[in-house]
């Protein structure tokens, strides 16, 4: 290859020629065609689409591409980012031209997507062939090797044999053996054409021929949308709907490869660029496949799954709060400087917040104007073996109501999140002697109230005529509530009474912030727990004191947060800025905590609370029949599949609780304690064998072994155990790998400090291995959550169940061993996978839509478990890296 060095090649090639742009265009066209064919394969854009519909699709693509390219180009022009690579620019321009051109063609003509793809392939073939020939004729300056190589030759031999086979079969049929001549001739011909000429011809001409042939076949509708091939030897057949996208995707792939080689001037750089594009398109294939499957299921199940979904606007707003907080946090995170995609990232960072803000604004208008938002549609139910369409709607009602459960859960989540972000203000600010004595009183007060609760529970509300509950208890509740409100007002009072600038005053009051927020929360929690015990709910003399107190305390804390946020704006000192930021978070923590207490109060007392027209109710602000209702047999409405959702969630929780500790424990023993030898090798083989055991075998084991030992009935517990056994090997394998990956240096360092092995494992090895362990858990849970076969055998799956298992309330304490019993765990349960299987595969009652809806919900449940797992993993990774 010494001739490669004979050229006087510039080290840097600046600017690009029209040849370069043409080939870049071919690459871009390949990418567009590839993405489109994948979407056509799952029928998101059917092949028969033509005219304005097709135009709209390409227009969407064009708008998306021009948005991305335009934004980046604008940022590049403004020198915010620097995109100087001619190849990136060329492909970006090519994407614009390709999508724009296809949009125009689709609007102006009446060709279908299939035909259009055919013409695209022909165009690609011409560009690539032309590029190869111009290179061979030295019209353009390239550095090809002597041959495209044996690998490419072999690949084209296979491709040629396939095309030749199809051709032979079509021309003379498969009846006589003579058709074999075609694949041999075409295969060998293509291989020779690839290997013998110089690389620039060898890697373009065969591609041009293959892609051109495919293009002609598709464009002339020799294989059209309605085409079908049913070989006699096969049961099934091939339709145009499958073959055309496959042809087009394949053509797009190899023409992208060839165009990339042309663009980089063949030789080693050409092979590099070609391989790079192929790998990228593969990754694109993965993403598109995943997204299409999810979309496919969701689009089919969405209507049935969301029928009758009704919620109050206030509930939605409350649910939006954590999302808004997350989006704010995301928008505030710093963008790395100097990265080429900085601007894009800035915009993507702000986008979620803007979108959520807009949604919140729309919902707020519902609250203000009193006009509900409704989206009406039809769904089908099965009645007397007839599919009957019904009308339904998704509604946002303008009721200013929120459920206590939602309020308590959301506020608690916010409280935890805020509390974690708040550092420590222990030694900041001026000391207030009187506050110090109050600080010492708080634990005493809380302990006293706890003692009173215990007392009332033990000896009853009126022991020996003393009105412990009604008078003393009520008095203490009232006093405690007042004290809590007083404490919560301390921060603001502190700021109001000290001297100096607002920032100084707020900073000086820092001890009052901690005392007010935490003391207030503690005292009010005690009062809240005491109130139901005293038997005086909801109120004292008609006033729901605890609820009103919580509301006032919330306002006080919110005010404190507002004051410190304002004070923060007025300071220029870095340290003070940080401290005031912490005080703001602390104030918000208090507000969230008091709101959570309000929700808990309504839950505990069981009576709603209304102030200024806004209500906290015990139930009924969110109605979602598919998820929140059991099946209603013989009803006008079919109800939902809540028992199946509950069953699946319990199955996953039970299997995880069973398998994860066992798996991690075994992994720790095998990696840290056991001598590596025959025993560990046997365990390893057994684990791997267990992991590859078919799931139905697990089911049989459960049915024949576990069930007879658990009372003889198919049960939820049996399902949990069987799924746990399936999860165990994966947890064991991944935990072992990640524990092995923890560097020995950590163990040495710990041992050299005199720390015992078990302590070392607990505090160094396991934390470092945690992200890997959790990854294993996520994968395993993804597998078992959708597992069907063993559940059919052991769960006693009730189809269209009318009652969900109630595991938590099923626990009962008994006076003799085993002391705890739970008949719910030993009862049969429904589960989502078996529900889907029964409705779709076995064709038991329920419309097909119901099956799809169940599948969509199953998918969502699995994805939710994934999300939880990934959040946990991210958390541990961040903790490990102090991000």
């Amino acid at each position, binding site marked *: 290859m010494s001739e490669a060095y004979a050229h006087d090649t510039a080290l840097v090639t600046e600017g690009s020629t029209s040849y370069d742009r043409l080939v870049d265009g071919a690459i871009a066209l390949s990418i567009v065609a590839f993405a489109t064919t994948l979407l056509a394969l799952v029928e998101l854009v059917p092949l028969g689409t033509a005219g304005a519909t097709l135009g709209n699709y390409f227009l969407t693509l064009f708008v998306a591409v021009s948005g991305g390219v335009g934004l980046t180009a604008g940022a590049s022009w403004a020198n915010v980012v620097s995109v100087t690579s001619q190849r990136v620019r060329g492909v970006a321009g090519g994407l614009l031209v390709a999508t724009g051109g296809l949009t125009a063609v689709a609007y102006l003509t009446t060709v279908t997507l299939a035909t259009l793809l055919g013409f695209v392939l022909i165009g690609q073939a011409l560009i690539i062939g032309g590029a190869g020939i111009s290179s061979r004729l030295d019209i353009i300056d390239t550095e090809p090797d002597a041959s495209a190589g044996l690998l490419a030759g072999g690949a084209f031999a296979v491709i040629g044999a396939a095309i030749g086979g199809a051709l032979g079969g079509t021309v003379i049929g498969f009846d006589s053996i003579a058709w074999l001549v075609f694949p041999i001739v075409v295969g060998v011909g293509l291989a020779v054409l690839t290997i013998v000429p110089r690389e620039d011809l060898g890697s373009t001409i065969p591609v041009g021929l293959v892609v051109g042939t495919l293009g002609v076949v598709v464009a002339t509708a020799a294989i059209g949308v309605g085409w079908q091939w049913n070989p006699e030897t096969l049961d099934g057949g091939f339709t145009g709907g499958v073959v055309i996208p496959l042809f087009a995707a394949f053509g797009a792939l190899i023409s992208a490869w060839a165009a990339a080689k042309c663009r980089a001037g063949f030789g080693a750089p050409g092979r590099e660029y070609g391989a790079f594009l192929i790998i990228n398109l593969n990754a694109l294939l993965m993403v598109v496949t995943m997204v299409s499957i999810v979309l496919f299921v969701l689009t089919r199940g969405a209507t049935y799954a969301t029928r009758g979904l009704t919620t109050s606007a206030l509930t939605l707003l409350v649910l939006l709060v954590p999302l808004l907080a997350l989006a704010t946090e995301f928008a505030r995170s710093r963008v790395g400087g100097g990265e080429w995609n900085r601007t894009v990232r800035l915009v993507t960072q702000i986008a979620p917040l803007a979108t959520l803000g807009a949604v919140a604004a729309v919902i707020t208008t519902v609250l203000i104007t009193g006009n509900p938002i409704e989206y009406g549609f039809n769904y089908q139910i099965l009645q007397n073996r007839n599919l009957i369409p019904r009308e339904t709607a998704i509604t946002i009602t303008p009721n200013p109501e929120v459920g206590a459960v939602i309020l308590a859960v959301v506020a608690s989540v916010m409280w935890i999140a805020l509390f974690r972000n708040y550092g420590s203000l222990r030694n900041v600010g001026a000391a207030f002697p009187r506050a110090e004595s109050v600080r010492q009183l708080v634990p005493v007060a809380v302990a006293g109230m706890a003692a009173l609760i215990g007392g009332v529970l033990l000896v009853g509300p009126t022991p020996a005529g003393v009105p412990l509950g009604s008078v003393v208890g009520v008095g203490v509740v009232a006093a405690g509530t007042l004290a809590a409100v007083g404490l919560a007002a301390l921060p603001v009072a502190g700021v109001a009474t000290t001297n100096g600038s607002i920032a100084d005053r707020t900073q000086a009051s820092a001890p009052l912030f901690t005392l007010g927020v935490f003391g207030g929360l503690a005292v009010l929690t005690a009062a809240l727990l005491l109130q139901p015990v005293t038997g005086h709910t909801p109120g004292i003399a008609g006033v729901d004191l605890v609820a009103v107190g919580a509301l006032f305390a919330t306002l006080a804390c919110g005010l404190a947060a507002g004051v410190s946020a304002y004070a923060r704006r007025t300071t220029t000192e870095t340290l003070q800025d940080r401290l005031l930021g912490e005080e703001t978070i602390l104030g918000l923590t208090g507000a969230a905590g008091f709101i959570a207490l309000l929700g808990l109060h309504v839950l505990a007392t069981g009576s709603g609370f209304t102030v200024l027209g806004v209500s906290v109710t015990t139930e009924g602000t969110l109605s979602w029949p598919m998820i929140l209702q059991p099946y209603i047999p013989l009803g006008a409405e079919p109800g939902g599949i809540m028992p199946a959702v509950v069953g699946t969630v319990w199955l996953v929780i039970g299997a995880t609780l069973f398998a994860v500790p066992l798996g991690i424990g075994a992994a720790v023993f095998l990696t840290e304690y056991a001598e590596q030898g025959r025993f560990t090798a046997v365990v390893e083989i057994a684990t791997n064998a267990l992991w590859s055991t078919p799931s139905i075998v697990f089911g049989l084991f459960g049915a024949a072994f576990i069930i007879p030992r658990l009372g003889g009935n198919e049960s939820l517990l049996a399902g949990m155990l069987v799924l746990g056994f399936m999860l165990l090997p994966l947890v064991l394998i991944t935990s072992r790998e990640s524990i092995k990956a923890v560097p020995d*240096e950590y163990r040495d360092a710990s041992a050299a400090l005199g720390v015992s092995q078990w302590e070392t494992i607990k505090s160094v090895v396991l934390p470092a291995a945690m992200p890997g362990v959790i990854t294993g858990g996520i994968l395993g849970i993804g597998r078992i959550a959708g597992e069907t076969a063993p559940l059919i055998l052991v769960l006693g799956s009730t189809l269209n169940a009318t009652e969900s298992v109630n595991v938590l309330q099923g626990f009962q304490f008994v006076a003799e061993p085993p002391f705890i019993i739970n008949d719910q765990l030993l009862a049969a349960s429904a589960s989502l996978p078996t529900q889907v299987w029964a409705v779709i595969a076995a064709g038991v009652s329920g419309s097909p839509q119901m099956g799809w809806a169940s599948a969509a919900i199953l998918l969502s449940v699995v994805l939710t478990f994934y999300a939880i797992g990934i959040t946990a993993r991210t958390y541990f990774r961040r903790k490990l890296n*102090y991000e």
Partner: protein
Amino acid sequence: MSETDITPDTGSTATTTTAGESDEQARDAWTEYRAAGETKLSVEDINVWYGDDHALKDVSMDIPEESVTALIGPSGCGKSTFLRCLNRMNDRIKAARVEGSVEVGGTEIYHPDANLVELRKRIGMVFQSPNPFPKSIRENISYGPRKHGEIEKGLLARLFGRDDTEAEAELVERALKQAALWDEVNDRLDDNALGLSGGQQQRLCIARCLAVDPDVILMDEPASALDPIATSKIEDLVEELAKEYTVVIVTHNMQQAARISDQTAVFLTGGELIEYDDTEKIFENPESQRVEDYITGKFG
């Protein structure tokens, strides 16, 4: 050659001249201690096998208190193996077999009932490549004391009325100051220790070792993975530490040994201790021809 029982020769120190004042002081101190016969570590006829490989042969030496003892020699000569015998880290290697006797302050550490936890608390170790835990700087320092129950903090400790947050802060400050790292990290004690530079990480490891309050510090080529500036900081630190601790340091850098150590042991191929004497004596007038060849660069 009979090198089974080599003890430093007291006579040679008086005749040598030293470069720096601190060196002179250290030298005086060393002479004093040796005169008083205060031996910290006494090793007798130690042999180590890795499987069938006889890695250390009949080594005996006495290491005096509050001084720096350097172990030098070519790669594979057994100096690290010897060091790891002193706190029984060789126990962690399954194939290793150790025979012989090591006494610390008169107590045999290879006694079957020896308390390994206590032993390793008394004899700390710093490794060749910096190995801080993936924890914060503060947690790295307080790791040892916390695991030994000397520092209790957190929710449970507070419930039982004990919160050593203040004690921890003092401990962290003391250890970091001793390791000459305090000024560089005092404003980011809660940052990840892995975010420090290599030299800082190694000083953090020294501070972590000091936090459990050892008597002896073993260092296995502590500066070999560091740049010259970080190396010189570690060297200064070692000299400073020798005022309070007994330091045994393995190094392949002869200049380093000459600069910082009070006495030097030379191991040559095959796991034999060839010569052990006062550092100046070894570098200026070694008894053995092989040692002289090694030091002048003719061999090794």
